[in-house]
């Protein structure tokens, strides 16, 4: 589970400038005086990011948006990390062994790790930290650890996890950004104690946060900068201008057009990550006329995905094929026929469904995904060619996720990239999922997906996941036109900055990874 883009702070989402993908850049690239940002900034990494809100808290159970997650990784460490190739690599859990049918796992704890308050890391701490999200808990990560039945300390260095259903990729599942390790019984979330490279100095929710480097960080080649300042900047143009005028070193969430512009100036660098984040127009398969499979296919063929990619994302993304697994994922089904824009095929499916014309409404807001409104308008134009009258209903960003999502029969939605294929499928496509936005329930699909999850043989697992993708693509209610890249930018002084396989800003661990030249 991971937070969809900025959907809570509707103003920030709306303020993400409804303009199709185009966010402020810099008129003339001539050099301009760089005003000093104030305070001792020698060795301080200054991040200006979207995703902060006045009601943020550092308690991992409340993490829903980007800024608290970024700060969380500065102060604390997770159990497992995802590397640039998307593989699960050890963090506080040093190694792991599945038994027999991948239902029981044994994890070995890294040794010699000390919390900021001097207490050394023990299995009790890990167990306590995971249990924070189990049982009666307000944590949204409850669904992630739902599969865990038992959590036992084997000895001073090992713990054992027993699952309800087999999961061959349990380590990747445990890489969730909310599973951060704090001392056993810890409750004082205003001053979190972690094993991370930095300690908290100032935290004003929705405004800014400053953390200072702690000596002797166990992680090799990490925590280079002296201090990190994170500023919450909701408005995209404000973020871009802050970088150009030198008030910050790193910004996230810029649009394709600004990225092109930044690329042309040697003083700046642009980082592009393909993390499987996708936009979706979700049809409610239990509501008319979407219950009819042919209607769903007609709508899938009536959208011009190439034009959307070019106009909305300015090319910074890849065309989607109505199923959640991105092309750069090892399990991607290469034999899947693409639903390229074909008005005639759309009409053909309409006639098969016994209709000459179709009149439907698509509810959308920029709170759904970046550029959603413009995408819907482009879709409206394309659908008209196929005899489909698409009414685009612009809904207020405020309360979009409670008033429109899962309520309107056909509405815009979004999903962030998952660490595992099962995570992606479980989120919105398994019958049991609470957020199955298309209400597409196929027992056969559930069986295959769970079988694949438990399958240790990679070849067999790829074959099973392939069938799942075919089922969603041909029969599902999710029209996924685009996989959207994460684009971020910063000054050339920032070094060691790599694209990430998951989320943005190097999986939100940019704080401990980069250094300033």
């Amino acid at each position, binding site marked *: 589970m991971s937070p969809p883009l900025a959907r809570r702070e509707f*103003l920030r989402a709306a303020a993400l400038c409804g303009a199709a993908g185009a966010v402020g850049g810099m008129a003339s690239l001539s050099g301009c005086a760089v005003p000093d940002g104030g305070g001792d900034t020698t060795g301080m990494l200054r991040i200006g990011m979207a995703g902060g809100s006045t009601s943020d808290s550092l308690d991992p159970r409340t993490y829903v948006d980007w800024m608290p997650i970024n700060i969380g990784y500065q102060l604390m460490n997770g159990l497992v990390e995802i590397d640039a190739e998307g593989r699960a690599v050890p963090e506080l859990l040093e190694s792991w062994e599945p038994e027999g049918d991948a239902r029981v796992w044994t994890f070995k704890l890294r040794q010699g790790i000390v919390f900021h308050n001097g207490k050394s890391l023990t299995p009790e701490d890990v167990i306590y930290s995971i249990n924070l999200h189990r049982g009666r808990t307000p944590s949204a990560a409850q669904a992630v650890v739902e599969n865990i039945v038992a959590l036992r300390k084997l000895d001073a260095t090992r713990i054992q996890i027993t699952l309800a259903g087999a999961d061959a990729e349990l380590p990747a599942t445990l890489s969730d950004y909310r599973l951060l390790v704090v001392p056993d019984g810890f409750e004082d979330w205003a001053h979190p104690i972690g094993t991370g490279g930095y300690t908290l100095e100032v935290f004003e929710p929705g405004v800014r946060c400053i953390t200072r480097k702690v000596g002797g960080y166990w992680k090799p080649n990490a925590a280079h900068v002296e201090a990190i300042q994170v*500023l919450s900047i909701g408005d995209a143009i404000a973020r871009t201008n802050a970088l150009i005028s030198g008030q910050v070193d790193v910004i996230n969430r810029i649009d394709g057009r600004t990225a092109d512009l930044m690329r042309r100036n040697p003083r700046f660098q642009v980082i592009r990550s393909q993390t499987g984040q996708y936009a979706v127009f979700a049809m409610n398969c239990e509501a008319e006329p979407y219950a009819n499979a042919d209607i769903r296919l007609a709508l899938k063929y009536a959208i011009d995905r190439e034009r959307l990619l070019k106009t909305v994302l300015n090319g910074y993304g890849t065309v989607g094929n109505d199923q959640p697994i991105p092309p750069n994922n090892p399990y991607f089904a290469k034999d899947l026929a693409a639903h390229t824009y074909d008005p005639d095929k759309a009409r053909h499916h309409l006639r098969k469904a016994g209709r000459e014309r179709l009149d439907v409404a698509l509810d959308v807001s920029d709170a759904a995904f970046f550029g959603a409104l413009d995408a819907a308008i482009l879709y409206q134009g394309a659908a008209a060619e196929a005899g489909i009258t698409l009414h685009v209903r612009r809904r207020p960003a405020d309360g979009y996720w409670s008033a429109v999502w899962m309520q309107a029969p056909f509405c815009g939605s979004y999903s962030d990239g998952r660490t595992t294929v099962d995570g992606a499928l479980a989120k919105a496509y398994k019958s049991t999922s609470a957020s199955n936005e298309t209400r597409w329930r196929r027992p056969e699909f559930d069986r295959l997906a769970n079988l694949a999850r438990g399958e240790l043989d990679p070849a067999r697992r790829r074959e099973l996941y392939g069938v799942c993708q075919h089922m969603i693509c041909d029969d599902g209610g999710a029209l996924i036109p685009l996989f959207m890249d994460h684009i971020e930018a910063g000054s050339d002084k920032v070094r060691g900055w790599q694209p990430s396989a998951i989320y943005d800003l190097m999986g939100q661990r940019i704080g401990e990874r980069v250094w300033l030249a």
Partner: protein
Amino acid sequence: MRGLIAARVGMGFLTLAVISALLFFATDCLPGDVAAALLGPQATPEALATIRASLRLGEPAGLRYVHWLAAVLHGDFGRSLATGRSVVAMLRPRFQNTLALAGLAAIVAVPLALGLGVAAAMRAGGRLDRAVSTLCLLTISVPEFFIGYLLILLFSVQLGWLPSLAVLHGGMSLAQRLGAITLPTITLVLVVLAHMVRMTRAAILSVMSAPYIEMALLKGLTRGSLVLRHALPNAAAPIIAVVALNLGYLVVGVVVVEVVFVYPGAGQLMVDAVGKRDLPLVQACGLAFAATYVGLNLVADIVAMLVNPRLRRA
């Protein structure tokens, strides 16, 4: 005079009570609630139930309002549903920022507007008058966020003189603070200037046709002292009304400028609070804005009375 003021203050409290009720029930009937807003779409039904139980959201709206009112009467504005922090603690720094920005903008805008208004009235029909009125109409017709973007583009991106981020925080010196809020202040000044200038000019011109102005002219006074000593004091009432209206806007209406300049003001806090259905926070912000607005109107009425001798001993 005192009786009148007491009555107005009494009315003010009544207004505040009605506003708090209006805000409460309006926010309450918006779709979704704080639990849904906090947990987002991935929330499992159990997690939602836990939060709702812990925040007593199950109770009917009327009961919750009464609890809130009772607490307020004891001076406790309650805690934010989203963060559990004291609402007053969250609001105070941001409201101070809003008042600071509004105050600075007012100090610049009001005298400038009165000056331009008087100057335009003095040389009515002249070149200056036409120039001032065109400037006013121009600033009226450009949305404030666009003025903000243009200022940022010119002063911080192109010239690099001023920061585009108005993020105020403890560590800043006064100079840095002023530097940070210069651009938002200029934006606000341009937004409110036009209305005040036009109304000041109209008020003075309507007084200029009065017989005592002709008498002053026949006493051989310069046009300057004619306007300043005789016309302006008598045109005070409508001018004070329009100044109060615009000061009210500076405090209550600047959400958009806060977003463009990333200024940690109370406007954005309230918009966030409404977004999250965080009722105690919405109430606190609403009351803070309303109290300021009602206070401003009261001061404006009193000043208007003081300026008009006929009403002074009413």
